[in-house]
């Protein structure tokens, strides 16, 4: 029998080692797996490389992981927000490395990793600072930059529902990076609001097939109040 359900968030992240590359889903707080991040903080892994669109909001979730100084490097597209003070402090103190990636390149590099693509040419960023030193090529009269996949040891993501095979459906714009991160990590850990019986998810509605998922933890709704995102870009 296949059963990817793990009883606790602690058990789900117990084997993340120091120095691991960890993808964390979410766009701001929408889709951020806050309870899994809390468990990772508790677990104590350090010198992590984190892949996320942002660099934490407020004092919880990814921001709390940064505040705990567990992150050596962050790969993201938009670290500067009105409520990203923990990242700001670490960055200005030179205590965290930043790899800034245009958002679509970030998504496609993650997608490429999950799809087994060796590298790809993208027009995004050509002629800008973010393409400096990178290989370029003109194809059919248009200029492209060569970008490489971003792979991870673990992905921590959030979805709405799962079954014990790890099939996932998401909720609204909280889907964001979940499906592509699930495919790009050796071990994908998902927190869901509800685990349903095998067969209860309509196969037509499954967004992430269970083959991309290794562990599922149920975090019932209202276990934690989610603050509305602040005014931030």
């Amino acid at each position: 029998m296949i059963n990817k359900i793990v009883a606790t968030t602690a058990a789900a992240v117990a084997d993340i080692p120091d120095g691991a590359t960890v993808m964390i889903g979410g766009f701001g707080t929408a889709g951020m797996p806050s309870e899994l991040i809390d468990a990772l903080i508790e677990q104590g892994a350090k010198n992590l490389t984190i892949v996320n669109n942002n660099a934490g909001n407020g004092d919880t979730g990814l921001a709390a992981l940064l505040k705990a100084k567990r992150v050596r490097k962050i790969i993201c597209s938009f670290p500067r927000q009105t409520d990203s003070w923990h990242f700001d402090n670490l960055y200005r103190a030179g205590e965290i490395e930043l790899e800034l990636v245009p958002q679509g390149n970030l998504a496609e590099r993650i997608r490429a990793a999950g799809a087994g693509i060796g590298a790809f040419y993208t027009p995004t960023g050509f002629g800008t600072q973010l393409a400096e030193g990178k290989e370029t090529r003109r194809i059919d009269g248009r200029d492209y930059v060569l970008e490489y996949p971003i792979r991870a040891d673990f992905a921590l993501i959030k979805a709405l529902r799962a079954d014990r095979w790890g099939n996932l459906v998401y909720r609204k714009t909280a889907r964001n990076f979940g499906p592509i991160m699930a495919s790009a990590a050796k071990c994908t850990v998902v927190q869901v609001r509800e685990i349903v019986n095998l067969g209860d998810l309509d196969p037509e509605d499954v967004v992430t097939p269970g083959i991309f998922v290794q562990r599922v933890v149920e975090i019932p709704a209202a276990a934690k109040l989610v603050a509305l995102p602040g005014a931030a870009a």
Partner: protein
Amino acid sequence: MLKRYTREQMAARVAADIPNGAYVNLGIGLPTIVANHLPKDREIVLHTENGLLGMGPAPEAGSEDPDLINAGKQPVTSLPGASFFHHADSFAMMRGGHLDFCVLGAFQVSVTGDLANWHTGGPDAIPAVGGAMDLAIGAKRVYVMMEHLTKKGESKIVARCTYPLTGVGCVNRIFTDLAVLDVTPEGLKAIEIVPGLSFAELKQLSGVPLIDASAKAAA
């Protein structure tokens, strides 16, 4: 006192240039108010790069949903016909040439359509790019909406951008509080000028070569 279009007039002017049936991404800041001016008789689908087509207006107070936000992380609504998708699909919509228009703010635009809108390059500034570079090269037509002059009175339309570039030669049309300008192979054409301002004055304020293609020139 310089004659200027108000922000609402600028937004209405941009909206007038978005046709029925268009798929459009409105950037953060000034461009977001274009949504309030889209003609009611046109069906226009708004894209937000965090994963929604068919974005509606902000919800009423009390019915915000933290899972339903726009690229500025503000609560929004979804309209009948809306769809959700993941990030790789969302950016394929831009990069793959499916999105008809984007409207972006800018620090500077060059006469050849180079765009600078993501980073001031200041030594203490934390760089953040988001989807700006993808939008700049991805949408079929890129509109820029910005004040014509900085607070110090310097032209934001320049011979060559001094701020770090977002995209090379990517801008098609510029809507400012003084004029509407098209980037063309012949150069920058002023197609409209705010009433009360002459082409000569616009050119003087802009500090770059301009071609007068406004109704005033035709008259």
